[in-house]
Structures are given as structure tokens and as C-alpha cells.
């Protein structure tokens, strides 16, 4: 595939609010990217020129924010709406190996969709097997977090990541990774065995640590994980906010590689 042919959609509904910076991250790398309202995929009221289909794109992103206000549960309304109008399309999209990224609210959506942890390769959108629960601190917090990259090569979004530890900030109230009670160890074993763990929270010394380094109380300090095929990634921290470096220099930031990696992957298809 050629760089000029790549098309990336960042999908929005009311309340998603990190779509513009996510679109910009791709555009800054010279790739076509646009924010697309979910309605553009299915609604009759949308004019022809604005109608879209998932097959128009090579990569989709569910951005951060408070989709539908995060009322009911973070990401619940958005994912329920996707299930009702796009379920099959999304399944085919993932099955064809195209990458899907969920950042923050987007991770919550992928979890609600059953696309993550995504153990079953044949059912990339299935039943819910994890939840992103209310932070142990019971509050929204915006702070920097340090992430240790632990993926051994499966995840298409971190292939080009050379640094062992990166800094992506977090900003959420519901980001605690929870697996079904009693099955936690089993899940973690499978994730490790399948190389699905991508990022884990660490402190300034690089050690797995508790609050505030693990900002939400996630089990096993999990900050981000991918499906068994490696083409769906969900993470709570925001790489698009560190496309440029965190401290004012306007230079390369830690988050940039996420976007570069997936472009590289798409070009290799």
C-alpha cells in the first residue's frame, strides 16, 4: 500500500472530544485522516457526499472523551450503538487485519464491544470479558504516567517503539482494568502467553508501582493491551497528547511512535 492511499477514520459521536488531535497526529505524518460521525455510516438523513463506509478506511480509531457523556458507564452508549449498526462491518474490518486503536474512552468502548482482550481470533467482536471500572481513587484525574512497553512484537501499534519506558499522560475516571472475578490469573497468563500485554504502569525508577503511578488500580498494572491478532490496541493513556514532547520543546514526543508504527504496518500490507 502507498502512503497516499492510506485513509484513517477517527470515529466520533456526541461527547467524544479527542478526535481533532488524533486526526492531527496522523496528518502530521503526512497521512489522510478525518473525524467521521457514526451517523455518516448509517443514517438516512446524511447527504450522499458525507456518507461513509468502514471499507473506505484502512485504520480506525476510537478517540478519547466522554462519548454520550459517559452516562450509564464510560463508553457503554457508544459501543452499544456500534453493535447495533456496525457490528458486522467492524468484525470484517478486524478480520481482514486492519488496525483498530482505542484511546482512553476508545479503550472503554473496545472493552465494552468485547473486542478486547479479544482472545478468540474468529470472534473479534464478541461478548464482554473485561471492564474498565471506576478508579480506586473514585475520581477523575489528569496526570502524567510512565509506561513500560512489554510487547514482544505482536502489536502493530508499537512495532517501531524502541524506548523501554515512555511517558503518556492519563485523564480519566474509569480506567481500572478488571477481569472476571476468579479468572484474573488465568487471564493474565493467557495475555502474557499470547503477547497481548502492551503497556504497564511503572514509577520513575521503572518499577511496577501503586498509586499515583498506577493511576487507577488496574490489575497487574495494565495500561494497554492488544487482541490476540495484534491489530486491535486499547490503552488508557493518551499518546496523541505527547505527539510533541511533554515539556514545551515542540520536538518529537513519546506518543508519535504509536502513529508511525501503524502507518509502517499499513504500508507493509
Amino acid at each position, binding site marked *: 500500500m502507498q502512503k497516499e492511499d492510506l485513509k484513517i477514520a477517527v470515529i466520533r459521536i456526541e461527547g467524544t472530544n479527542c478526535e481533532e488531535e488524533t486526526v492531527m497526529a496522523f496528518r502530521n505524518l503526512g497521512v489522510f485522516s478525518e473525524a467521521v460521525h457514526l451517523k455518516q455510516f448509517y443514517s438516512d438523513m446524511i447527504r450522499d457526499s458525507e456518507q461513509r463506509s468502514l471499507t473506505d478506511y484502512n485504520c480506525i480509531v476510537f478517540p478519547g472523551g466522554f462519548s454520550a457523556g459517559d452516562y450509564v*458507564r464510560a463508553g457503554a452508549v457508544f459501543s452499544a450503538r456500534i453493535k447495533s449498526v456496525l457490528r458486522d462491518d467492524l468484525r470484517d474490518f478486524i478480520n481482514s487485519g486492519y488496525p483498530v486503536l482505542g484511546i482512553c474512552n476508545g479503550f472503554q468502548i473496545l472493552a465494552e464491544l468485547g473486542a478486547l482482550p479479544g482472545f478468540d481470533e474468529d470472534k473479534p467482536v464478541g461478548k*464482554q470479558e*473485561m471492564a474498565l471500572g471506576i478508579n480506586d481513587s*473514585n475520581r477523575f484525574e489528569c496526570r502524567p504516567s510512565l509506561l513500560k512497553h512489554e510487547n514482544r512484537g505482536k502489536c502493530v501499534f508499537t512495532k517501531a517503539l524502541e524506548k523501554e519506558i515512555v511517558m503518556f499522560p492519563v485523564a480519566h475516571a474509569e480506567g481500572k482494568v478488571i477481569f472476571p*472475578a*476468579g479468572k484474573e490469573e488465568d487471564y493474565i497468563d493467557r495475555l502474557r502467553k499470547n503477547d497481548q500485554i502492551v503497556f504497564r504502569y511503572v514509577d520513575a525508577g521503572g518499577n511496577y508501582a501503586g498509586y499515583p503511578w498506577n493511576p487507577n488500580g488496574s490489575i497487574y498494572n495494565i495500561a494497554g493491551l492488544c487482541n490476540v491478532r495484534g491489530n486491535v490496541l486499547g490503552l488508557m493513556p493518551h499518546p496523541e497528547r505527547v505527539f510533541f514532547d511533554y515539556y514545551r520543546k515542540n520536538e518529537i514526543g513519546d506518543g508519535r511512535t504509536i502513529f508511525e508504527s501503524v502507518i509502517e504496518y499499513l504500508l507493509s500490507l
Partner: protein
Amino acid sequence: MIADVYIYLKEGVADPEGEATKKALRLLGFKNVKKVSSRKVFRIEVDARNREEAEREISGMCEKLLANPVIQKYTIQWVE
């Protein structure tokens, strides 16, 4: 028909909201509080011919949207 749908956490799932509320109550001087847990209720009014139909409808809503089966359970109580 009107029903109250209760969404609550499954046994064993941590309840930061309940914990934080307990802590805040104790700070305010309510020393006798032993435990607080939080739930969420949706009062839903539906048009339906009979209770069975309404119940089916509302269970559908819970499964599709209102509850996350990994951590939550729900019960339905009829108000009228």
C-alpha cells in the same frame, strides 16, 4: 408501565464509590457507618401490552446497554 432497574456490582468487585462515600461520611463525623455500597437505578417507562412483554423489553435494555456482565448484575422492580 414503569420499572426500576437496579444495577449493582457483583460480589467481589471493588466499589470505590461506596468506599469513598464511607470515608467522607466518617470524616463528617458519622462514626457509626459500617459499610456503604453504591448502586444505580434507572426508572424506565415503557409502552407494552403486558408485563411479560415489558419485562422482555427491559431485560433487553439491560443486556444491550445498562449493565456490564463482567462486573454488574441487575434486577427489575415494577413500580406500576
